[in-house]
């Protein structure tokens, strides 16, 4: 049963990340391959605060992490607002690689390549969350809140404004709306989702290291959004669950183990191409 629950936990954490990525990439149209970096920052922050000499309990740590990630994401997407889309691509790659460099080399803060072991299990205002099924409940709660938030925002005027910006930015600006503020707000929200996901991840695995927050992870996130469906709630849920199940499904097919991971990455790549060619809106999304 633990196996099923641990799959659900990880899938739900990636759903939060999917919402974050979908907000940035799908809805606002900022191509970001640095969401894994923000995810990582959230994870390291929660780990730091729950393991400090004067430890904070889980929820306060999460709040701090979320706030920091909001600020970080605003900072990180600022360049995109000054340069056109394609230039930002390189900046985004650069930010991700820079983050990986910091995670790996700043040993004092992040444990460096060794990682941070022994992160304590979380507690919900005193109620300890120790077993995997309990953790699954915690994550489900977080995801439900996240999805609800996403849904409400998209229904609200803010959501319509974001969609309008996507369609025609100059028209929106001409109509007197503050495009910059809308984009920054969306980025901030995306940061909150990513930071929360990071905290949940750290507490669940009790061990984090830079390899979970690298460029490959960012690309995986992008794949989830593309396959699941851009810009929609359903897409943000379907993508992660499907793509996390994929490695497990692959073990049922008889591929020689020496090429299994390369095969998996290959399939991700093919999925991206196929979807872009034949179904850019993903399984449950709108046209990218």
């Amino acid at each position, binding site marked *: 049963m633990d196996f099923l629950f641990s799959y659900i936990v990880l899938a739900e954490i990636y759903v939060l990340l999917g919402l974050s990525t979908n907000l940035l990439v799908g809805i606002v149209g900022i*191509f970001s391959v640095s969401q894994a970096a923000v995810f990582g920052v959230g994870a390291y922050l929660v780990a730091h605060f729950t393991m400090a000499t004067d430890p904070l309990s889980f929820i306060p740590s999460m709040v701090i992490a979320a706030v920091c990630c909001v600020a970080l994401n605003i900072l990180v997407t600022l360049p995109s607002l000054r340069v056109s889309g*394609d230039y*930002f691509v*390189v900046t985004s790659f*650069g930010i991700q*690689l820079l983050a990986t460099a910091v995670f790996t080399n700043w040993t004092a803060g992040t444990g460096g390549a060794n990682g941070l072991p022994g992160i304590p299990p979380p507690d919900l205002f005193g109620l300890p969350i120790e077993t995997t099924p309990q953790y699954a409940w915690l994550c489900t709660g977080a995801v439900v809140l996240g999805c609800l938030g996403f849904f409400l925002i998209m229904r609200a005027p803010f959501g319509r404004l974001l969609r309008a910006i996507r369609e025609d930015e100059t028209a929106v600006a001409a109509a007197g709306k503050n495009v910059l503020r809308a984009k920054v707000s969306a980025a901030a929200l995306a940061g909150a989702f990513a930071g929360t996901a990071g905290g949940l991840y750290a507490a669940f695995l009790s061990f984090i290291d830079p390899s979970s927050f690298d460029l490959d992870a960012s690309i995986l996130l992008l794949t989830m959004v593309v396959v699941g469906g851009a810009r929609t709630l359903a897409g943000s849920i379907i993508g992660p669950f499907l793509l996390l199940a994929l490695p497990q499904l692959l073990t049922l097919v008889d591929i020689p183990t020496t090429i299994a991971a*390369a095969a998996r990455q290959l399939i*991700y*790549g093919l999925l*991206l191409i196929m979807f872009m060619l034949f179904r850019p809106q993903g399984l449950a999304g709108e046209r990218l």
Partner: protein
Amino acid sequence: MLALQLLATGLVTGCALGVVAISFSLVYATTKIFHVAHAGIYTLGGYLAWSLVMSGIPMPVAVVISVGACAALGALIQSQLYARLERRRATHLVVLIASLGALAVIQNIIAAVYTPNILQFPLQWSSRMVSVGVVRMNYTQLLTIVISLIAYVGTMLFAHRTILGKRIRAVASNPMLADITRLQPQTVYVYVIAIASALVCLPGILVPLDLGLQPYNGVTPLLTATIAMIAGGVGSITGAFVLSVGIAVVQNLSLLVMPGEWSIGVTFFIFVIFMLFRPTGLFTAR
């Protein structure tokens, strides 16, 4: 002397990077596509040459065949993938993601076929050492500098003196007008990617000749090359090449003052600052 040796190493890396930057710049300036799959072609070139040499074919012939194969693959990606997406009026984001997908496919086919281990070219002459003043370099490093400079000059001549080159520049500067005046942009795009892929095959062979082959070794050079291209000014071939050498030299020399693990991080940090304050680059094309 340490500094001189580091400078030399930086020059070699920079020259190879320069060719990657030039070739990528050709594609981007003309088609406006952020062709990340370029890194895959770079990697593939090296592996193809290796396979040919391993089966007994002399190196120069292997190089020619690999260059041809890369050009063909590039043309294939353009005509089958990018052109189709263009016909469906896909956004830049969609094309970029498709290119990422193509990159993943190429890299992982290589990893599956050749295994992820580091492979070496079985050529004795490549590691023979030579002293240039107080600096020691091997034949491959010298060859890299020479061939990269030839590629740079060749590309400049091609772009400014030949008819195809001028046609490419015309399409690059105004695709809509090019369409109307029957310059056939789509065909030009295929030529451009083919040429760029042929070019990038050269460092794709030379760098692994010195350092060994790995399936996933293409992404970092491509990103650094892209930084050089943008910092040098999109559309400027000279800008891309000069900045590539500059970045590589700075990265190597920075070791004199800081631990090695930070040098790549510093490069990207400088780039991000660049993006915030001077996004148009240093040698902006007219």
